[in-house]
């Protein structure tokens, strides 16, 4: 059974390396073939990931014996939804990129980098050794940097360089601080095994040490999530990146941060995280308001969605900080919800940007409702979910996050947390305002010129499947909540109350 897990990692690794090197040979692989190879690899990986999630194999081999690092990979209820999200979106980005020539460099490198990003994300979610988690975390960096700097928005070279540079430098700072935290955690608790760390619940580590380690980890991963005020790399990176890059960045890479907080801070350092949780929650709520306000005035649609990501991740942070099982589940749910919704919106906006030539929503254009009903429908679903309409996927995570923060764990300052919830509710109101603003500007109206083509083929099928996911998870949130409940309870159950 371990072969499933190894295969799920090996296929993107080998395909990615092959595609990058093959593009450099004397006879370059044509774009069509690169897409087909990539699609085949992504589908095979997705099937193996699904099988891995069902069979739950464990790989545990020594790797760096001198440093006590083991190649330890496994699946549990917390990582399973993220693994599925990663694998399925990797298929979707390849389908969506079909018949869109990648400008800026060889197509094989483009697809190769996508494969390597998938590899890094899968390895991060599978890792059960703290140092392997860090190593996997770093794998996505260079491929994503190449995607942004080479294949990004072709209009502005300097902006591309700035966006890709910011992305990579911020992330390296975050991950190196995280590494210091990980090394300190491993040193203090005597094990690098994430399951063993979670089982210890911080036993034997003094509260002051826990606070130092948790602070290092939260600042490190806070850059990746991103929490305000460490978010400034995100809007340019999302705006400049090609559609596939934006989707992977928003839907998958940001989740590595929140996932890391659960695994490395909340579970093994309950006292340290508990002490910092109010501040963490405060930054999250500032992010909700900040992101929402930026969205109210932002005219670049990609940048707008990027700021809305900051706001959505604020709700995740609020849920994580509550210290309750419900809050943890809410955060994990909101994680997936944001993955699905932001993927939907970035696919959509990427398509619109191609049709319009820019992503500016202030320019008078044909109303989507009139000229491209499919795109218009997807846009309505996406923004409705984004504003947290009940019955859609965006509702549950944010509602439960606020609910859990209203009744936080006993060691959290209840009044302060309730105050934060009130502010977060205001933020949700702002989300409604900016969502409706976008819909008013580009969806409604009766202009029919300049007309553009509606979504068809691969583009439409990707959008349709994501819309369906938004509806299904919105109507039946239990599908996801049941998967995470056992693991979430195990993490919060023994938090000292």
């Amino acid at each position, binding site marked *: 059974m371990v072969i499933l897990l190894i295969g799920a990692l090996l296929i993107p690794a080998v395909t990615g390396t092959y595609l990058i*090197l093959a593009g*450099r*040979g*004397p006879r370059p692989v044509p774009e069509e073939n690169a897409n087909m190879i990539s699609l085949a690899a992504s589908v095979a990986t997705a099937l193996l990931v699904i099988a891995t999630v069902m069979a739950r194999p464990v790989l545990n081999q020594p*790797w*760096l*014996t*001198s*440093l006590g690092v083991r190649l330890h990979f496994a699946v549990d209820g917390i990582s399973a939804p993220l693994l599925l999200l990663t694998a399925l979106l990797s298929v979707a980005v390849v389908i969506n990129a079909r018949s869109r020539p990648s400008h*800026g*460099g060889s197509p094989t490198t483009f697809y190769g980098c996508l494969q390597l990003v998938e590899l*890094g994300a899968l390895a991060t979610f599978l890792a059960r050794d703290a*140092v392997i988690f*860090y*190593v996997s975390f*770093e*794998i996505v*960096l*260079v491929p994503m*940097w*190449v995607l942004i*700097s*080479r294949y990004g928005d072709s209009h502005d*070279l300097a902006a591309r*360089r700035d966006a*890709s*540079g910011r992305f*990579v*430098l911020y992330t*390296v*700072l975050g991950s*190196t*601080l995280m*590494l*210091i935290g990980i*090394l*300190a955690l491993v*040193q203090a608790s005597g094990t690098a095994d994430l399951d063993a760390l979670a089982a210890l619940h911080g036993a034997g580590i003094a509260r002051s040490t826990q606070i*130092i380690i948790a602070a290092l980890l939260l600042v490190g991963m806070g850059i990746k999530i991103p929490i305000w005020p460490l978010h400034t790399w995100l809007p340019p990176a999302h705006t400049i990146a090609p559609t596939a890059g934006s989707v992977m960045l928003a839907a998958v890479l940001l989740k590595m941060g929140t996932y890391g907080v659960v695994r490395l801070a909340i579970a093994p350092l309950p006292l340290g995280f508990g002490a910092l949780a109010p501040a963490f929650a405060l930054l999250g709520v500032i992010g909700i308001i900040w992101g929402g306000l930026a969205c109210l005035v932002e005219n670049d649609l990609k940048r707008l969605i990027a700021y809305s990501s900051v706001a959505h991740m604020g709700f995740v942070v609020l849920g994580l900080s509550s210290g309750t099982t419900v809050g943890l589940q809410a955060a994990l749910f909101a994680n997936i919800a944001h993955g699905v919704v932001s993927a939907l919106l970035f696919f959509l906006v990427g398509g619109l940007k191609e049709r319009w030539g820019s992503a500016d929503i202030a320019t008078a254009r044909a109303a989507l409702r009139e000229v491209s009903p499919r795109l218009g429908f997807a846009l309505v679903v996406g923004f409705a979910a984004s504003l947290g309409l009940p019955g859609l996927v965006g509702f549950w995570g944010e509602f439960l996050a606020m609910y859990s923060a209203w009744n936080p764990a006993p060691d959290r300052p209840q009044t302060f947390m309730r105050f934060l919830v009130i502010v977060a509710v205001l933020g949700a109101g702002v989300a409604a305002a900016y969502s409706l603003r976008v819909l008013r500007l580009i969806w409604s109206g009766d202009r029919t010129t300049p007309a553009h083509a509606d979504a068809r083929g691969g583009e439409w099928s990707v959008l349709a499947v994501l819309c369906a996911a938004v509806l299904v998870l919105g109507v039946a949130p239990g599908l996801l909540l049941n998967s995470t409940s056992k693991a979430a309870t195990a993490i919060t159950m023994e938090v000292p109350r």
Partner: protein
Amino acid sequence: MSQAVVSVNVGILLPVLAPAIGAAVVLVTDVAVQHLRRAHYLIALVALMVGVLATIAGLGLVSGANRRTLCLPGSGQCMYVADSVGSTLQLAALLAAALTLLLSWPDDKKEEPGGTAVVVSLVLAATAGATAVAGARDIGSWLVALELATLPTVALVALRGARSAISGAVALLTTALVSFGLLALAAALWFTATGSGFLSPANALASSIDPVRRPILVLAVVVVIAGIGFKLSLVPFHAWTPETYEGAPLPIAAFLAGVSKIAALAALLVVIRAVTPLGNTALAAIAIVSAVSMTLGNVMALRQNGVVRLLAWSTVAQAGWVVLPLAAVSTDAVHAAGAYLLAYVLATLLVFAVVAALVQIRGAERARTISEYRGLLSDHPVLACALGLGLLSLAGLPPGFLGLVAKVAALRPVVTSELWLLAVIAAINAVLGVAVYLRWLLIVISTPEATPQVPLAVPAPAAPALVQAIRVHPATLVAVGFAAVALVLTSLSPQMLLGLLGG
């Protein structure tokens, strides 16, 4: 009779003897048969390979195990000890020297100043010094071996005779003399403090508990750090580095960045391991120079356009990383410093080898600044991939897993000792380092069309890449290939390299 005589085991000494004898053989051959060129290099390679084989027995030994010789009768103290760390550094020095020789392999056209025999024998002599210092355990041979590793490099830099070479050599010579003065002072202080010439923990322990002798011992260690700081290019003893690197021929710059740094760290480790009883106090100096070196090195490297100068400043920054773990006292720290050094040397030599290959293809003019590397990925994909791997390894990012693991290993002792400030400074420098190397890499992978160059100024490369590759000297290609394969293998399994240093 055996009572009075120091025991000698030639097998254990072979990593030192092989290059030394090789140097002598090269000189004798040159006297006997004139106008030999490649033969000298072949002799040298054979000598280095013999040395490599001789180190194998010392690799991967468990902690405490070692092979010793030149032991004094009675006392049990030995002047030469090869344990796993020392043997690994010897191995690295010998291989790095072989790589340097491959890069400077003579072609038929140009005559080398001084002849190949001089260059080859100087390289071998310096290498013998590097391997000797790794095994030296008494302050006398330690000092002599370290100078043997340094002085030939002055001649190697100066041999080209150009003005920049001379000024580089003078900078290096001045530095070497000051450094020697400091180290001689340190040796005297050590002798005063311990009353023994042997660099052993037992001797240091005795004086570290004596309130009168302890300050002298601490002073000795601080002076040693300063003296070796010159050789490792640590701030504030780094000023010679950019000038000398730029003045030296490219292979010699690679030698300075490789073998010389190995010799310097090996010398430092000998002392550091002897003074573990002193605890952290003496090593605060290391924390400071480490933090300052990496910061200044990275900031200056960010501003360089010249390839060699960039690599020189990157050496300064990386030297800070190499000594970073030594700010904490532990066996782990010694291993971590060794591991980081090996990763750095391997990656840097790969970068130097690629630059040397490009100099041969395009001429020195068109490989001198990083802006000349625009479009390298489309023009010379293989070289560009090798360069990319080297740079990413130096930056410590996947796919350069070796650099990443070295970073983890270097940070671990610092975190274990709870030196939080130093750890955070290191984290910030990890970011600066990434900026340094990705700045170059971004130029390498960008498309050539974007170049705002005047097309007439540069003759368009008419021949396809494969034909151009033939213009590279086969020895250089072997060097690139060897370094690249070694880096790929150790990146796939960093334990291969960490394991050499022993448990």
